[in-house]
């Protein structure tokens, strides 16, 4: 079963929920993998403290023009919907930082003058944290396209009972790439106007992608009741409510696994896990 943990707003507790689910699942004897898909700022390793066993480069494919064959006909430039190619005078320029590796330019080139070459964009790190299988992608600084790195992370998922995708914040391309293909999407939010505003965007995304999803309300005893009203009105299942606890914040700030340091949190996460494994009512 593949579970994506996402949110609209950043800082709602995605990583706390995802790493705690991994920790509790492993403690209860389930085979589980934690995949950090937030490749621009992966932080699950701070809490899981994995032993990294393998590290390899992540590459994306970029087009290269053979100047001897190119006739500067401009078909590749017209085909590129990302505006990454310009044919000017006797030169065909490719701005690879804008390239989405779709391969369209290769298909339309009548002179067979374009080939693809791999370009390193980051690193893939795999290892183990206790019994938890750990995978993370780390995008190189200055690299703008994270989806190929997220794909590499997801392609590395081991064959286990439970796969957890810790997703980036927001609702743009990197999040779509991260949640795609999951069996259940957990939207972590908090009961604040910001939390609700971005939850609504995340719900729209989940519905557009036709994903099964439910909400986890973190710091549930602060803020207001608007998130509950919204979920009730929209008939969205609230799968867990995690109270605001100083002990969790303290454990987090020390880089400790919150579910290990705060047994009460572990119990709440265990209930969530059991609900998920028995078929969450979403």
């Amino acid at each position, binding site marked *: 079963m593949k579970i994506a943990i996402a949110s609209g707003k950043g800082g709602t507790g995605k990583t706390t929920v995802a790493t705690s689910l991994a920790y509790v699942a492993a403690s209860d004897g389930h085979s589980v993998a934690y995949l950090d898909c937030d490749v621009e700022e992966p932080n699950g390793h701070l809490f899981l403290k994995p032993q990294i066993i393998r590290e390899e480069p992540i590459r994306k494919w970029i087009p290269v023009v053979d100047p001897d064959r190119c006739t500067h006909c401009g078909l590749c*430039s017209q085909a*590129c919907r*990302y*505006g*990454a*190619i*310009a*044919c*000017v*005078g006797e*030169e065909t*320029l490719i*701005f690879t930082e*804008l390239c989405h590796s779709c391969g369209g330019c290769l298909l339309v080139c009548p002179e067979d003058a374009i080939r693809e070459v791999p370009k390193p964009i980051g690193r893939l790190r795999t290892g183990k944290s206790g019994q938890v299988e750990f995978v993370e992608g780390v995008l190189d600084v200055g690299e*703008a396209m994270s989806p190929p790195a997220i794909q590499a992370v997801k392609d590395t998922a081991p064959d286990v009972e439970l796969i957890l995708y810790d997703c980036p914040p927001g609702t743009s391309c990197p999040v779509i790439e991260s949640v795609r293909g999951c069996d259940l999407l957990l939207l972590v939010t908090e009961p604040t106007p910001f939390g609700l505003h971005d939850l609504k965007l995340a719900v729209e995304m989940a519905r557009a992608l036709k994903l099964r999803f439910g909400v986890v309300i973190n710091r549930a005893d602060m803020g207001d009741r608007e998130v509950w009203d919204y979920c009730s009105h929209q008939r969205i299942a609230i799968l867990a409510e995690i109270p605001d606890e100083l002990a969790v914040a303290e454990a987090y700030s020390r880089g400790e696994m919150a579910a290990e340091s705060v047994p009460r949190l572990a119990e709440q996460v265990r209930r969530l896990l059991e609900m998920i494994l028995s078929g969450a009512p979403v």
Partner: protein
Amino acid sequence: MKVAVTAQDPNLESTVDPRFGRARYFLLVDTDTGNFTAHDNAQNLNALQGAGIQAAQTVVQLGAEALLTGNVGPKAFTTLQAGGVTVYPGATGTVQQALEDLRSGRLQPAGKANVEGHWV
């Protein structure tokens, strides 16, 4: 000489559009005759990315030898340079004033982009 000028309206009295890639119009002016044509840049104005590159390609294809505009970023500059277009950034006022500033030498050609690139 054929000169491209970024403009907010399709006439010579228009204010110069300070943006290059997402300019509203390109006016292609023949400085010998004073004749001009206006070219809508709506397609690049609404592009998700790469507006500067594609706008530069448009200007090259229009046959311009020089470009008068407000700001040009690095990718657009590279493309314009490859297409043999001399770039005069810092143009202000109306299109007519910008052309006058070119004649009088107040506008000087740039050897590199005058602003940094940006995402979307």
